[in-house]
């Protein structure tokens, strides 16, 4: 297991009280795996990334029963070692909004060269050649190294960020919404590029997005996040074919499928719970059409529902009935 988190909680402190943005999340990623994490805005995806990379504000509490990465206990690893040995070398981030993530007054190539030299004793010349090589891998002409970020298009910048993340072929590549803000054609090319990169390097990828299409095309395994928890986790194909959690069913309804042309999209009514005052029971209970009284009272634990599949719902026994009902619009909008 490359990354293992058990009961991970991230609590932001604010004057209005604590906000538990990630609430008891279990997550495991194995070597050379693309793990997709989906969920709507505000469900804690980005907070999870920030917690993993220690980018959360100083007052934030990050707690977990287990948080292991490659044999390191990330909860206890000193900041200095984490910064020097883990970041960039072992865990590299491809940030959300690559548009603004490059230093505007430094040439793109020079920024990557600097990152290389900050983490290893590499000569300037060698670092330069490494960048040229990486530019080739991500599909940028090496001549573009001497350009400034504002001379790059959005897709080019995104690819430059991926090149920077790949410098040391890290064990884990964290991509936070890599396709946000790109049009579908550029998106498609980028995803193809990510799949190609996967063939060439041994890195695992944690792909975070709210776009189910991106996940379906790229990920091996998918985690569905809701209100700070992982409500369902499964290999990609089975997850979309046979969801086990009502929220996943709702998500699936809300996205167009190429196999069912003309199917009416059904949205999930309501909005996620206020995490500064989280519900005692299941986070989805307030919006779930299949809710029982027990759902509001106790939080359902994540249980193995099939091989390699986990779902956190009290009504897993009724899943056949729920799946059939979820396909009807009246179930959601009555």
């Amino acid at each position, binding site marked *: 297991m490359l990354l293992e988190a058990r009961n991970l909680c991230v609590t932001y402190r604010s004057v209005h009280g604590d906000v538990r943005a990630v609430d008891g999340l279990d997550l495991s990623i194995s070597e050379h795996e693309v793990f997709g994490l989906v969920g709507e805005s505000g469900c804690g995806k980005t907070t999870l990334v920030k917690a993993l990379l220690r980018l959360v504000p100083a007052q934030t509490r990050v707690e977990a029963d287990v948080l292991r990465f490659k044999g390191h206990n990330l909860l206890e690893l000193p900041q200095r070692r984490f910064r020097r040995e883990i970041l960039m*070398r072992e865990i590299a981030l491809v940030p959300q909004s690559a548009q603004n993530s490059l230093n505007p007054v430094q040439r793109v190539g020079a920024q990557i060269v600097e990152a290389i030299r900050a983490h290893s004793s590499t000569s300037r010349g060698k670092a330069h050649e490494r960048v040229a090589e990486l530019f080739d891998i991500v599909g940028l002409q090496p001549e573009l190294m001497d350009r400034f970020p504002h001379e790059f298009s959005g897709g080019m910048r995104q690819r430059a960020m991926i090149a920077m993340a790949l410098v040391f072929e890290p064990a884990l590549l964290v991509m936070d919404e890599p396709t946000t803000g790109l049009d579908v054609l550029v998106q498609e090319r980028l995803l193809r590029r990510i799949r190609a990169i996967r063939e060439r390097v041994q890195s695992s990828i944690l792909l975070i997005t709210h776009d189910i299409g991106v996940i379906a095309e790229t990920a091996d395994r998918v985690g569905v996040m809701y209100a700070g928890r992982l409500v369902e986790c499964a290999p990609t194909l089975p997850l979309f074919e046979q969801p086990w959690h009502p929220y996943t069913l709702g998500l699936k309804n809300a996205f167009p499928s190429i196999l069912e042309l003309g199917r009416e999209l059904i949205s999930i009514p309501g909005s996620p719970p206020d995490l500064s005052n989280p519900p005692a029971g299941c986070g989805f209970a307030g919006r779930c059409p299949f809710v029982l009284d027990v759902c509001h009272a106790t939080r359902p634990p994540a249980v193995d529902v099939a091989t390699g599949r986990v779902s956190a719902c009290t009504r897993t026994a009724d899943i056949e009935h729920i799946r059939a009902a979820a396909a009807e619009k009246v179930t959601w909008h009555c």
Partner: protein
Amino acid sequence: MNPEPLDSVAAPMPTGGMRRWAAALRRELAHNWRIIRADRLGSFGMVVIVFAAFVAVFGPWLMPHDPYASLRMTDGRMAVLQQPGAEFPLGTTNLARDLLSQMIAATRTTMIIGLVSGLISIFIGANIGLIAGYYGGRVDNVLMRLTDIVYGMPFLPFIIVLIALFGRSIGFVMLAIVVIVWRTSARVIRAQTIALKQRQFVAFARARGASDLRIIYRHIGPNILPLLLLYTSFNIAWAIVTEASASFLGFGDPNALTWGGILQDLWVSGYTRRAWWWFAAPSLAIVLLVSAFVFVSRAYEVVANPRLADR
């Protein structure tokens, strides 16, 4: 273990780095030249600064006379208070000293005081601003209260006390200027740093494991460069003016000729009304050099802030 992916790369040409540096330097110079050329006042300022620097460096070879010697005219009379003319291009003083030579000698002192105290003060101000702005919290509080205290120090009483304690010398004049001048640059650069540290690329640098110092000096630093250049030349200009006023009031080094010192000699001699040339030369020189620095910085500011170009 992580494989070292860089070992597979062939060894680079040994001269590659040097050549790249030379090319980068040439590109930067050409680029800066274009910026200055594009602005007419900026070009004028640059010419004045280069001229003043030339005079400061080669002064001893340019002076027609010893600046302290009492001179005679060709007919043998003492050249007391001569108007500018063929023999004495800028005229003479009441002690029959050649003003041109005095001006040339003073250029060096003025330039040294201006540049040294201007550069030291921007160095201090920029670092205090960057560190206060980046770290925030208690560090920010301590440094900014220190800046507030310095803001409360009036320049003239401060230099009078300093001179009274330690005697009149260039060193203490420069020290007094540095102690006072850094405060504005510190405040402005702190504000800019606070704005920059919120930007995405700073957060991303942190996500790459960049240390605080690297973020401050490699990522935020280059972004405040336009502001830094602007305040460097402001500080130099301010230092020159301040030195001139200190010298004029008699707090300058008695053994060093400065433009302000020449004005003080005039004031002390009591010929202010009669010898217009005696105050014209140093006053014009001060105004010209100070505005030259402001014009050049303005030419850069137009690049950093294009809205100014419309004016």
